[in-house]
Structure formats: C-alpha cells, structure tokens
C-alpha cells in the first residue's frame, strides 16, 4: 500500500451512483482514482486475454494488498485474479477487467477477504464448475453484468468478518445485471447487502439456489420460498 494507506475497508469508500451504463462509467472514473491513491502495487492488463495473477497449484497461494486493473472495455477471457488451484486473497481489488475481476474455476477454492471488484466487463466475482468461493466482507459494484455469479455446480458463501455485522458484510450493489446470480449454482449470503442492481438483486435460474441470512436484500427471483425456472429456488433464512 502507499504510505499511510489501507485497502478499501468496505464498499462505502467507492462511488456508487446507479446501475445504468452512464452511472457506472462515471463511478468507474472516480473509483480508479480512489484505488490508485491507496494501492502501492498495481498490475495492469491491456487488451489481452489471461489473468493478472493465477493460482495454478499445487498448494495454496496467499496474495495481499494487490490492485489489478484492466482496459475498462469488454472482451471475453480476461480475469484479474484466477484460481485454478487454491488461492487466499486479502485486501485485493480488481477494476475494469474486460471480463471478470475474481474467478474460481474447476475444483479450486478461493478465499477473498475484504476484496473488491468494480467496473468489470461482465462480472465482479465468479465461481464455476466445482469451485468454491468464500467472500468475507468486500464488495462488488458497477460491473456490467452481475456482481457475483455461481454457475454449473459452483458454490459461493459470504459472511461478515465478525459473522454478525451487516455493516461489515459483503455488498453487491449498482451492477448492471444482478447482484447475485446462481445459474445451476449455489449462493448463500450472510449479513450481506444486495441492493439497487439493474435487473434483480438475487436471482436463481436453472436449478440455481440463492439464500440469505440476516442481510439486506432488495428484489429476488424467484420470490422467497418459491420454485422458479427449472426448480431454481430462493430461500430467506430471516
């Protein structure tokens, strides 16, 4: 980190004015300035596919206080932090990646503690196939599609660092699509704030499951306690 600076402590330091393309573009310009004023190490990706940092295993790697930025326009196949093996991330941020900020693939496990993903071309955080992603605090905002996505058998869990305070919990807000999208995947958000996204805040599709406990959630599809498309469900644990 730059002298005297810390990683974004929560979503509150990011500008988030709306989920429209214009609002997200405006917020993105402010947020990259805020991030660069904090981080001492930035990995910049250009118009190429690939990862900023990839954990390929064997074993788990620990990454702390790194900012990875992209070109801030869309093309498929670029991610800031990519777990193929296991990764543990603390205080890291992704901004403007052409595709995804944080990605867990295959059988990997990614732990993201106080990590933030903004202004990415599609999604902020993803877990796909058999991957597992644990979000402890942190946030996703201003991404073109979803803040968080679990797909094709993956699971994402989230909680506040103290497992109690919603103010410290993960936030997904002002993304262009959904705050959390589970397409044949599972997402459980505890003490989170999932609001003000462009489409639906928590969305389950094709046998996906979204669930929340003691958080703040705006819109949900299917409605709490109901089965939607191809047995997708949304569960509110209160």
């Amino acid at each position, binding site marked *: 980190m730059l002298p005297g600076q810390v990683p974004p402590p929560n979503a509150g330091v990011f500008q988030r004015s709306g989920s429209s393309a214009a609002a997200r573009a405006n917020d993105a310009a402010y947020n990259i300035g805020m991030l660069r004023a904090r981080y001492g190490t930035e990995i910049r990706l250009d118009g190429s596919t690939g990862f900023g940092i990839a954990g390929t295993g064997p074993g788990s790697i620990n990454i702390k206080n790194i900012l990875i930025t992209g070109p801030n326009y869309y093309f*498929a196949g670029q991610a800031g932090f990519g777990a193929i093996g296991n990764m543990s991330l603390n205080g890291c941020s992704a901004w403007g990646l052409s595709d995804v900020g944080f990605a867990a693939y295959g059988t990997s496990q990614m732990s993201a503690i106080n990590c933030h993903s903004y202004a990415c071309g*599609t999604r902020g955080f993803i877990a796909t196939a058999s991957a597992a992603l644990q979000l402890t605090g942190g946030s996703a905002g201003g991404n073109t*599609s979803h803040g968080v996505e679990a*797909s094709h058998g993956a699971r994402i869990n989230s909680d506040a660092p103290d497992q109690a305070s919603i103010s410290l919990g993960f936030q997904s807000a002002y993304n262009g*699509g959904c705050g959390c*999208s589970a397409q044949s995947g599972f997402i459980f958000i505890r003490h989170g704030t999932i609001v003000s996204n462009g489409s*639906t805040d928590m969305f389950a599709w094709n046998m996906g499951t979204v669930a929340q406990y003691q958080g703040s959630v705006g819109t949900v599809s299917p409605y709490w306690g109901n089965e939607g498309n191809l047995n997708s469900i949304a569960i509110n644990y209160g």
Partner: protein
Amino acid sequence: MTTQTVQVFIRSEELGGANPLVIACYPESRPVPIDTHGPGMSVLMLPVEAIQQPSLDGGVPKLVDNWQDFGGTTAVSSEAARRIEQSFTASEQIASNRQMIEYIQKYGADTAKWPPDARQHKAELDEKWKYVDAVKVQARAHITARPHDPSSDKVWPTRPST
C-alpha cells in the same frame, strides 16, 4: 414431448423492445400474484422456447428475438384461463352447477318462484358466468389481434365484484 408453458415476469416498459429481460419465471400451474415482483410487471404465458438462456459465461435470461411469435394463442388463452381461475375457480364452477340443479329440483325451473336467497345466490353466480363468457369472447378477439400487453387489466373485462 409436450412443450412446457411458463409464467414469465417482464417489465411492462420492455414489452415493445426486442428482447425483454426475464425477471422471474414460474411453472404455469403455480398461482403467483402479478405484484410478486413489484409494480410495473407483465406476466406472459410462454413456451420455454421463447426464453433465451444465459450463455455459459453468464448474462441474464431474455426473451428470444421473435418471442411474440411464440406467444400467439398460448399467451392469450393461458392468460384468459388464469383470469377465469382467479375469479371463478373450476371447483367453484362445478359447485355452482350442482347448486343450480339442486335449486331446480327443489323449487322448479321458474326462477321467479324461487325464494329470495336462492335468487340472490343465482344472480351472484350469473355475474361470474357472464365474466367467464366475456373473457372467452375477448380471448378469441385477442388471438386474432394480439394486444400489446396481454396481462394488462385494460385489455380484459372487468372482474366481478364478488
């Protein structure tokens, strides 16, 4: 294999667009109030082929380019059935018929000779039957000239008050 028909919630303001976002989707048979996902929603009864799945790389489900072509008869007739079921369920209709037969057996075919409470009951049921008939007539007209929003109250007969 019979194509599955589903209830698709989309924003009413997107009805005129090419690919409305799918806000929610439920089996056809499940009663889901139209305000479940907030105001400004339209519910379309569509075959699953009218939904464009998200890609493997994410995105959101939308209606396909020519979703109106899928709607046609299914969208209108399913909406008509939904409206009738909401106001006068199939079991209520059967019970109504049975009640009328009982009245006729008991009081005769001339309803003018029925006691006031039976006549009042018949009048209430007649209102519901009139509504059923009106919805069916309107549905036939909508199949010929499809309305912009088949789920809008504005394009269907007013529901009976009882």
